[in-house]
């Protein structure tokens, strides 16, 4: 969404406000989006601060206190070898969230470059790339990621690569569509006809408008990526013991479900809350950037 059109509706403060200020103004208007942002800030803080805020070493065994129920000493209880589940959930943020961010960075990076290239070159190359992407998009992506992860060997890096690869075509489509439509936009043509420097056109008109939908998609994708990576870990194709990773913790905790409910519950809750955070923020950003959604 551009500043000008928002101003026309009188929904925005004075023109002098910077892009960031405007973004912040819009964010504050949506309580759910702010909740999402708040969750993400907390999760990122936990990621960074895990070594200082975790009460125990996440890998330290304590065979005397195995499968202890939640208490003041162990907020989330302990696991089958006496490790503190609370500390492992905090440390797990590092693994799970980093993997989610990395998946999106890889698929967005490759997808955007391929898509923009395809859209700008056009012609046969474009057709060939897009037909290929259509075929890849027709694959059942989770099953493909499973098969790829199994083929590469079950570990977290391979699971991450597998998920990233099957997500690339989504960004290819998105970026290509942007490249195609922006080339012929009246305001781009107008700027050109006024003799605006190319760099300025790129910076002021092309980049902000091309990146917005891609960034929105990426934000929404982080939640999905975290969910998918933890799902692969759950079926044994991702993080392996003793790594503190949320999906793998739920998988081990599954064996203790009926007697020690807390074991699988808390790591799973961490996945849910984190995914909610990214999805709320992504939704909010999409509403802001999609003029059709505004005011709804």
């Amino acid at each position, binding site marked *: 969404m551009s500043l000008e059109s928002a101003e026309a509706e009188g929904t925005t403060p004075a023109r002098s406000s910077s892009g960031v200020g405007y973004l912040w103004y819009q964010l504050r208007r949506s309580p*759910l989006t702010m909740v999402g942002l708040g969750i993400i800030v907390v999760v990122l803080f936990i990621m960074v601060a895990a070594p200082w805020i975790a009460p125990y070493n996440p890998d330290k065994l304590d065979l005397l206190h195995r499968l202890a129920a939640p208490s003041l000493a162990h907020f989330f209880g302990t696991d089958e070898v006496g490790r503190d589940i609370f500390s492992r959930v905090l440390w797990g943020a590092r693994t799970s969230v980093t993997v989610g961010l990395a998946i999106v960075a890889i698929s967005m990076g490759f997808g955007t470059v391929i898509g923009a290239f395809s859209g700008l070159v056009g012609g046969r190359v474009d057709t060939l790339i897009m*037909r290929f992407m*259509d*075929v*890849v998009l*027709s*694959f*059942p*992506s*989770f*099953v*493909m990621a*499973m*098969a*790829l992860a*199994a*083929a*590469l*060997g079950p570990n977290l890096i391979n699971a991450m690569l597998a998920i990233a690869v099957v997500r690339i075509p989504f960004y290819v489509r998105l970026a290509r569509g942007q490249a195609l439509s922006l080339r012929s936009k009246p305001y781009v043509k107008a700027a050109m006809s006024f003799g605006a420097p190319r760099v300025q056109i790129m910076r002021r008109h092309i980049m902000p408008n091309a990146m917005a939908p891609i960034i929105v998609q990426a934000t929404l994708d982080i*939640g999905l990526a975290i*969910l998918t990576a*933890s*799902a692969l870990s*759950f*079926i*044994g*194709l991702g993080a392996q013991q003793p790594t503190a990773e949320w*999906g793998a913790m*739920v998988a081990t905790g*599954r064996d203790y*479900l*009926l007697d020690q*409910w807390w074991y*699988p*519950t808390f790591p*799973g809750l961490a*996945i*849910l809350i984190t*995914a*909610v955070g990214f*999805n*709320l923020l992504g*939704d909010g950003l999409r509403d802001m950037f999609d003029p*059709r*959604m505004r005011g*709804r």
Partner: protein
Amino acid sequence: MSFLSIIRRRLIFLVFVVFGVTVVTFVISHMIPGDPARMMAGDRATNEIVENMRRQLGLDQPLWRQYVTYIGQVAQGDFGISIRTQRPVIDDIKRFFPATIELALAALIFAVAVGIPLGVLSAVAKDRWIDQISRTISVTGISTPAFWLGLLLIYLFYGRLGILPGSGRLASGIAPPTTITGFYTVDSLLTFNWPALRSSLIHLILPALTLGFVHLGIVTRQIRSAMLEVLQEDYVRTARASGLPRRTVLFGHALRNALIPSVTMIGLAFGDLLYGAVLTETVFAWPGMGNYVVQSITALDFPAIMGFTVVASTAYVLLNLSVDLVYMWLDPQIREVS
């Protein structure tokens, strides 16, 4: 463009997709570390036995020839013998596929039955508390790890309350109904097998809730945004202004039109449900394709993995095609042009 030419184009595309899927799965399954010949022959087999096994499986042939042989067989519906179950893969698929479809359909029914009213309410009461609740439900839905939700439900309804079963399709003492469709609920209904019907229904509840919850979010959100769009249309305003009852306007005018764009999305969601079933089936020991493929991956059973992927992708593309056709048929603008 006419219906027929669209169908023709899409069928040609389908051939490409299936070809692509077979190539990719073939390559992937041959990248899987481990030696299937040795696995099949067993740990104590001599090298000679393993070599024989390798020849028997055709694994001593060059890759391209293995692929050509494979694609020839696939064209005849032959996906080879599963290394793990020792049965033809196609028989396994026939056996497990109905269970997955039954589960996915039940989940879809749940998602649609709850999602459509919730989406409508949400749009009508935009920004009021009911809208906030429904948006919270839909965001939670798409953010919930299905395997975890399944575990929580098992803990609560099976472990704590003891009112619902936590695994399988039928209670252990009950024989499966005579196979007609492969859906236990439908088959037991058709054969008047009441104990099997009751047992299959209560076994379906938790897995269907688990799988359906994620899609409930997607359906609600889609219906909400389609309704919001339609409610601003002139014909809705006119209908309102002419004094038609609110219900008539809402359901007769608005919802009918909001459903048109939603069909595509709900159809596609069904395709996703089939894959979501992989996790749900693992948690609930549901004897369907998802469980089958996870066990096949663990056992490096590549004829089974390839068979599953080819069948599932073909089903996915066919499903998309039929969804598009239904969409075209529903939308008068498109229907009349063609």
